[in-house]
């Protein structure tokens, strides 16, 4: 519980590497998957990657502001998911599938 008093054991760069790798994986998922739900999850992965980066930098700079930003990311993620999933359910009701290719009603 006194972990926060200990000096940082891992260089901050490694955390950034982890965040970047996670972000890249998420981005790949968004680009390559067709299931809207999975794409959505991959967006969450990317948000998560930024969270890691924020917390790591907060630790590195000796402030808590980065951690506060993560709270806002969480709030935005929650809002985004609730609306997004409502839209997905709507798409599913209309089209009977969650394939991204089916959501092309706006295509001219």
């Amino acid at each position, binding site marked *: 519980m006194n972990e*926060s*008093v200990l*000096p*940082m*054991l*891992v*260089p*901050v*760069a*490694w*955390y*950034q*590497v*982890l965040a*970047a*790798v*996670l972000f*890249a*994986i*998420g*981005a*790949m998922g968004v*680009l*390559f*998957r*067709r*299931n809207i*739900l*999975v794409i959505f*999850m*991959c967006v*969450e*992965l990317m948000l*998560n990657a930024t*969270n*890691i980066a924020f*917390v790591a930098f907060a*630790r590195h700079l000796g*402030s*808590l502001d980065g*951690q*506060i930003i993560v*709270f806002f990311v*969480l*709030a935005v*993620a*929650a*809002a985004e*998911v*609730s*609306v997004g*999933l*409502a839209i*997905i*359910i*709507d798409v*599913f*009701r*209309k089209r009977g599938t*969650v394939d991204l290719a089916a959501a092309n009603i706006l295509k001219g």
Partner: protein
Amino acid sequence: MWIFFLLALLVVAGALAVVLLPNPIHSALMLVFTLMATAGIFLTLGAQFLAVIQVIVYAGAIMVLFVFVIMLLNLRAGEGGEESLHRKTGLGQILGIGLAALLMLQIGLLVLTGKPSLLKSIHPAAELEAQAGGHSQAIGLLLYGKYLLPFEVASVLLLVAIIGAVALSRRHLVIGPGRDESTEEVP
């Protein structure tokens, strides 16, 4: 040190599984796993409060919503839930791979040639926490002091999201092309 690398490995493995598994419910569960490992990463950074909140909000609420929707739509593998991973590679994908490669290259360069000053760790926010009388207290003070306005904006955002979600999922507002909307009843 080794704890970080173990957790990092778990995070990356989980993330890969999210992207690569064909069944959406497996993806969702692996995402839960990834998020919990991320909470572990937060712990190594001394952010206990955030780690617990991460589990409560992400794993306990957001992902439950995901799994709930997957179950509600009852997507089994092969019934529109599954898909072939090799969808036609368009310009977007190529660009994406290019960008990711660039990102990776930069990271590699950063790690290999990174200035030692960047790798030096500064003493954590111990004074801040000592002043406030605890980790959670320090975060609370910041959240309701310095970041009060963003906090209120976030709450408005959540309210809007609630209203939006309710409005979107109201049955009689759906103007569909003659489909029977009452296919699934509320469980």
